[in-house]
Each structure stands twice: as C-alpha cells, then as structure tokens.
C-alpha cells in the first residue's frame, strides 16, 4: 500500500493539470467560436505568402 503515497498525489496532480488547462482555455476565449476553430486548423495563414 505504500505505492499510494505517490500514486494518489500523482492522480490528483494530473486531474488538476487537466482542470487548470480547461480554466486557462476558458479564460482565453478558446470556446468563444466553436465553428471557426474547425476551419482555422486547415487554413494556410501560417505560410509566408499568406501572412497579412
């Protein structure tokens, strides 16, 4: 059972990491435009000739 000493904190830390990532994404407006994000992934705006 000694394994619990680090497994339980590890599980909590991983979960907490996920939660922190979610809250960060929320604050950054990642969920503001759910439709647009799907399209932006396939646009070529990172190529030099398309950069505005």
């Amino acid at each position, binding site marked *: 059972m000694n394994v619990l000493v680090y497994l*339980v904190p590890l599980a909590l830390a991983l979960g907490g990491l996920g*939660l922190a990532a*979610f809250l960060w994404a*929320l604050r950054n407006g990642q969920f*503001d*435009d759910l439709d*647009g994000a799907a*399209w932006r992934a396939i*646009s070529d*705006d990172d190529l030099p000739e398309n950069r505005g």
Partner: protein
Amino acid sequence: MTDALDLALYVRRPLDGVAAMDLVVDGVHCGACIAAIETGLRKQAGVRGARVNLASKRVTVEWNEGALEPPAILERLEALGYPAYPFSAETADSVDKASEQQLLRCLGVAAFAAMNVMLLSVSLWAGADSDSNSATRDLFHWLSALIALPCAAYAGMPFFISAARALRGGSLNMDVPISLGVVLALALSVFQTVAHQRDAYFDSALMLLTFLLAGRVLDQHMRRRTRDFAANLAAIRADRALKLVDGGEARETPIAAIHPGDLVLVRAGERAAVDGTVEDGRSEVDQSLVTGETLPVALSEGARIYAGTLNLTGALQVRVTKEAGDALLDEVNALLARAAEQRSSYVRLADRAARLYAPVVHLAAAATFLSWLWLGAGWQQSLIVAITVLIITCPCALGLAVPAVQVVAAGALFRRGLILNSGEALERLAQAGTVVFDKTGTLTDPRPALANGADIAPEDLALAGSLALSSRHPLARTIARAARATEPISGHELPGQGVTALHEGRRLKLGSVAFCKAEAEAAPVAAAFPDASLIVLRTPERAIVFAVRQGLRPDARETVAAIGRSHEVEILSGDREPAVALIARQLGVAHFEYGLKPKDKIERLKALKAAGKRPLMVGDGLNDAPALAAAHVSISPISAAHIAQAQADALFLGERLAPVADALSLAAKARRLMVGNLWLSLVYNLLAVPLAVTGQVTPLVAALAMSGSSILVTLNALRARHA
C-alpha cells in the same frame, strides 16, 4: 447625395491609441471567408488586427487611432464582398457571456472532482474496503472529502443561490431539493468518515452536480446563441436616420445617437426610423406596420409620424420627439404597462413538479426516520437511513428532464426559422387553444405585390419593370420584382411623383395616377381593388394601371388550414372590413373582426382567456404590442415593429408562415416529452425508495441510479428533434 456616416457610437478604445469596433458580417460561412476577411482587413493601412467569430458571424477590428476613419473599414469589407453592419455589444450580452463562463467553470470543477472521487470510490467498491483494510478506506474517504467539499461548495453555487432566492420568496423550485440533497449527502459522508463507517456518498453528490451543470450549460449556451442571432438581425436592420446638422448637411447617423429635438430627413421611399412630428414637407405615408391600416395616410406639417412607417411620396423633415401627448402611443404604452402587471404568473412545469415532489420526498424521509426510531434503531442510524432516502430521491434526472427537452426543441425550431425568447415559451405554446392572427404584415407579406397581374399584357409589364428599375420607390420596386426586370431603362426620377424616360423615341412615364394624368383609366381598377395602391405606366398611346397591395404570405393558406385542424383560428385586424373579409375568405377563417383598436384586441383576448381557451397571438404592429403582451403566448415576424418584437415570446424569420405551425406542433411534442421525462425520473427514483427506506442502499446503488436515470432522460429528450 453621399452621406457622411457617423460611427463614433460603435468605436471602443480597449487600449491607449487603439480603437476597435465590432461588426456583424452576415455572409461568412466557412474557412475561406475567415481568411479572406482577416487578411483583407490586415492589409489595410493602420489596421492592427481582425478576428472573425464564425459561430456568431461577427468580426472584431482593431486599428491605430487616427490612422483611418471607421467608415473605411465598412467600405473595405464591402469591397471584399462582405457587407458589414456595425454592432454595439449590449451590456446584457456580456452578462450572458459571463454567466455562461461561470457555469462552464463550475462544470469543469465538478467534473474534475467527480472523476477523482470516483477513482477512489471505484477502488473501494472493487475490494479495497474489506475490513482488514479499514485504514486504507478511511484514508480514501478523507481524500474524497478533501476534494469534494471545496469543489462542491464552488460548483454548487448556482443551485444554492437559486434555492436561497426561491426560499426567500416563499416558494419552492427544483433547486431547493437539489441543494438539500447535495448538502445532506456531503454532511452525512463527513459524519460517516469521522465515525470510521463503510459508506460515504461524496461521489453521488459530485456526480449529481456534474450532470445538472451539464444541463444548465447547454441551456445557457442555446439561449445565448439565439440572443446573439437576434442581436445580429437588429444590427443588420439597423436603423439609421439622416440627421440634418447645422447648415442643412445630412449625416447618416445610427438612431441610438439621435436625441429628441434633432431634425431628421425622411426621403420618399424610406422608412422613418424615429418617432417625431413633421416640421416641413407633405407626403403620403404607409402606416400599416403601426396601425394595420393598409391605405396610405396623407401627412403635412405638425402631423405625427411613427418609426416603422413607410414614406411614399415626398421628403419630410421630422423633428424627433419622445414625449407623450399622442393618442396612439399613449394608449399603447398605458395598455402595455397594464398588460405587464397582469402577465399571467405562469409557473414552469419543472417548478410545479418540484412543488409537488419536494414535500412528498421530505415527508417520506421524515417518516423513515421516525419508523426506524420506533423500531428501536438508534437515532444516529435512523438519521443515516433517512438521509439516504433523500439522496436516492434527489431529483437529478428531474432537474435534467425539462432543460434537456427545451434545448433540443429550441434547436430544432431554430433550424426551422423560429427564435424562442424564453425557455418557458415552449411550455406555454403547447397550451395554446386558439390562434389569433393579426392581418397586415402577419398573414400578409409585408412587401407589397402586384394584384392585377392577370389583366396586364406581359410586354407592358416588362416595359414597366425595366423603367421601374431606375426608381427607389417601394411601389416601383414591386413592379420591377413582378416583371423580373433586369435591363434598366435609364429614366429621370421626380421625387414623390414618378420617373420619365425617352425610350426608342417614345416618351414613357411611370408614377402616380396624377403624374400620368390617368384618372379615367384608374377609376375601374380602383373600384376592383379598393385596398390597393395604384401606379400607372403612360406611353404615348395609352395608360396601363397597376394595382399593388400586400398579398398573402406564400404558404399562408396551407399553414392556416394545418393550424385549423388542431386549434381554433381567428383574425383580429385594425384594417377596414373589405380588406379583412377578403383575407378571411381566402384563408377559410370563419371568425374575424376588423377596425379594432389595441384596446379591443385585448378585450377579445380576455374573453378567450375567460372561456378557458389560452390564446396564441401572432402579430407584428405597434398596435399589436399590448395584445402580444396580454396573450398567453405570442409570436411576431422578424419584420415587426421593435416594440412588438420586445413583447413576443418568439420570432419567426422569412416570408413563410410555416414556422408558426411548426412551433405549435413541436411545442406540443416537447411538452409531452417533458411530462414523460418527469414521470420517467420519478418512477426511476421511486423504484429505489424501498431500498433506501429499508436501509439497503449502498453508494454503488446510488451512483447507478443517478447516472442511469440521467442518461435515460437525456436520450428521451433527443426525440424532440423531430415534430
């Protein structure tokens, strides 16, 4: 005349030296549009950045202050092929967004806690709680408590706050039993942990919160989307007026920036955007959006002009007024105030269920406690059993039952062109017994159509249509549309009279009867179409008279017939008898009333209510606003007057009337599903009650009961997608 456009109202200053503006861009649908707009705008000198939001069809532009004039951005977008409309984010909008984000944060926290606690619980159920391991079990319980208590305190806030509000107001809503269940489950679990007992219910409490928050988030998201959509439409319709500034210069100004006392110019063919009194000029005005009366009214100096009326013939200078002193507006406002007071205190289905359900559950728990005590158990054990009864009956599915159906049904209606203003509108819509239609602008298409097309030779119509293309006048546009004209004959427009042109050596005129001197030819047409406006094409040889009036919406007949099969249908109109009788006959509606004042419409609705037939009012005019507020439930077309839209429970888009019938049938189905869902979750909970009362409920049973019923209810709700 090119009008200077004043956009100062819409410009924000997020940073020093940076200006920003939000625009509604209706034409974006895909990635290519995003790229075209964003790169196109960034290439404009001075622009710092542009960001398109595809979901809400808006774009935010930032530029260095002073580097360019705001109208240049609109021109740039126009040149890119995306007409844009400035939009000022309302405060209500940001409040909505903030509450959605808060709910999402709560959901994130609750889901995180539920998963971690479940991890600990599952290992206990899997055997870690054997008696030889009681130290491990206690450790797991303490860990669960450590996670669950702060997280539940945070994530449960929306429910606790709403429950506290209901209790303060002396009523019960669904959040009261939910809050009670969560708090008691946590308290009991802490108690069990301290006492080194086997069963703790941290996972149940958190799972309950997670499921319910998911429902709330969906509900809020749906509501925000429809509100965004309505705000976009408002921005597109956007009302601007030509403000006359010192020196007689006309400046196009958003009406939000126009104040009482300003002088505005309303040109022939334009809709007045503000209420006011005519300062100079005379004209005929179509007031159908205000009074329902289709015949134009002559206005001159000192006359009152209403926002939404269509100026037909001459330019008017209007002094903007707001103060009362006008018979119709005063009457409408007074009636509205009274109707708002009397607005039936409708109790939502879920709250009604909670009122019945909560006392029963609480009594059952109390009875369990007393029985166990009487049977000789200790008060501690009795209390534990009583609390498990409360936990197992906690209305997890009950809380999801109604919102889930609402979200699915509102989404289905949205796709069919109907926007719901409130969730409970769906429930009230399902109860409607009589459907009351206004005539003008509701049953009829607000855009006029050619009435005597059958009497006119195609070549005459084509000629008139080509000539009409060179006019801005609404009646001329109707002729051009009817003729499907594409090749304009360039003509000279005399404002308020008509157009003249020299075409293939012949002098042509298109315009009013007086302008074309065609009184003799016009008389028989006027007699045949008493409710129509006349427009004449004068060639050197003869005069052809066109009668233009508002026709029925294209699917009005089928829709009214379909509604008539399940509901009673009536027409209440402010228009004159012949016009109303004609429409009623065409639609096969037996009961119609005409020449009604706003007060009369309310009287009729009251009579219907008294007879137990809850009326659905469908109307668009300023004169319908009090009736829309007084009816059990109301729908407006999107072309309606602002004040009417504000009162309506739902808005329908487009020129078809079908969304009204769809709304009725989908609402009926949604209500059936809601009631079905409530029973489903009730029965599910009741099955578990005997176990709870006899003290057989373990945390595992509670977890299964809760998730099982929630999933069942959600699946059932998905059936609301199809009428």
